[in-house]
């Protein structure tokens, strides 16, 4: 890590300029809870660190007319303390808050969780289920991209040279909507997800599901948006049959790794079970809203 440069610009423009003109490899840093571990372990080489925590757009949560804008570098502790986001999108907050310990929560961000590109990132399925989008800034200006289009393979993103993530947008929800995130880990705290499931759904006045999005983490090279899971719910009252169909669709979508935390067979089975449990929680929340 010798000869490593550091800058902490105060505007989006400056970040883009540094990213495009830096000699060698410039890396964006938010909370640093992935980046610094990787740098220290020698798994990542960089010549410049661009700390984006001093840019207000990346650090604020804003209620807009049509939803919430959440800065990419907002920490888990900050998002967890935001009452309105908690109320509207408890599943999104649940995902980020599951990350690490109290100490990690003081730093870990949604932007870092996504851009690190881990298939098991806990913040990601909840955001995909929520239909969240990312505002990306780069040398050619800004563009907006759905969260599920960012990670292309483990550790790799679709961000182009000079681009970085400024904020997330979570849309307003219709009445009778609810979301939830559940993960399964062998311990009760501080572990990597064997399976993670984010579910977001909307009901009509009679309790029929009119819209749903289901996302699975840790069971494929990237978090998945599983259309067949949503189709199993939409048009039903989310009864036993619908939940069984959802479970089956979740298990069928899995393409997991085999490791000490879970075999392929185990992860596939757990994905079905967890998808059902997360859906039941989202359903309860939707009925109350």
């Amino acid at each position, binding site marked *: 890590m010798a000869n490593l440069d*550091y800058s902490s610009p105060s505007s989006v423009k400056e970040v883009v300029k540094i990213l495009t003109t830096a000699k060698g490899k410039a890396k964006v840093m938010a909370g640093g*809870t992935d980046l610094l571990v990787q740098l*220290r*372990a020698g798994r990542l080489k960089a010549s410049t660190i661009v700390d984006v925590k001093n840019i207000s757009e990346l650090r604020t949560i804003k209620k807009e007319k049509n939803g919430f804008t959440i800065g990419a570098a907002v920490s888990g502790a900050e998002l967890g303390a935001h009452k309105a986001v908690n109320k509207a999108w408890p599943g999104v907050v649940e995902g980020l808050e599951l990350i690490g*310990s109290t*100490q990690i929560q003081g730093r870990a961000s949604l932007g870092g969780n996504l851009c690190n590109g881990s298939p098991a990132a806990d913040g990601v399925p909840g955001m995909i289920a929520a239909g969240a989008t990312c505002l990306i800034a780069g040398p050619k200006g800004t563009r907006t991209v759905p969260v599920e289009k960012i990670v292309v393979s483990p550790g790799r993103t679709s961000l182009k040279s000079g681009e970085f993530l400024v904020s997330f947008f979570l849309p307003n929800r219709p009445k009778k909507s609810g979301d939830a995130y559940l993960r399964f880990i062998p311990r009760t*705290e501080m572990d990597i997800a064997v399976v993670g499931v984010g579910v977001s759904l909307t009901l009509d006045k009679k309790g029929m599901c009119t819209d749903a999005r289901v996302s699975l983490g840790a069971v494929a090279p990237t978090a998945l948006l599983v259309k067949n899971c949503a189709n199993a719910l939409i048009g039903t009252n989310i009864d036993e049959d619908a939940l069984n169909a959802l479970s089956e669709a979740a298990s069928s979508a899995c393409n997991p790794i085999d490791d000490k935390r879970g075999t392929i067979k185990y992860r596939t089975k757990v994905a079905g079970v967890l998808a059902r449990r997360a859906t039941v929680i989202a359903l309860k929340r939707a009925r109350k809203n």
Partner: protein
Amino acid sequence: MAKHHVEAIINGDPAEFLCGTEQTLLDCLRDELSLTGSKEGCSSGDCGACSVILDGRLVCACLVLGVEVNGKKVETIEGVAKGDDLHPLQKHFLQEAALQCGICTPGFIVAAKALLKENPHPTETEIRYWLAGNLCRCTGYDKIITAVQKAAAEMRGES
């Protein structure tokens, strides 16, 4: 790359030091400022032995760059006692024998101090979850939890 000149408020007093980008806050506290109370257990955010409070938030000093704390406030284990007066947490850790080798203790005390500031009345479960990022290989945790509960009670004026 020239070294960075960093000015921060550490345990209430202004402090300054020079550091390279690659030096973590933990490296700076220990090697540049001789504040060796914060310990290095893993350097990867897993053990909590390096816990400090940065601008009011509990963090792992091994996952913060030294240069990041320019203009910020840092509280370490060295600032917990007031002169010779031990903090209730320190007193109860001793009374309950909540340490053996002691390497994890500064981290636990700083983390517990942050907890009691936010939640003066934590349940046992809340204490256990809050401290889940602090590892201890000696005590088996029960005595640590008891010490935190007793310190919390004393700080609420109940004992």
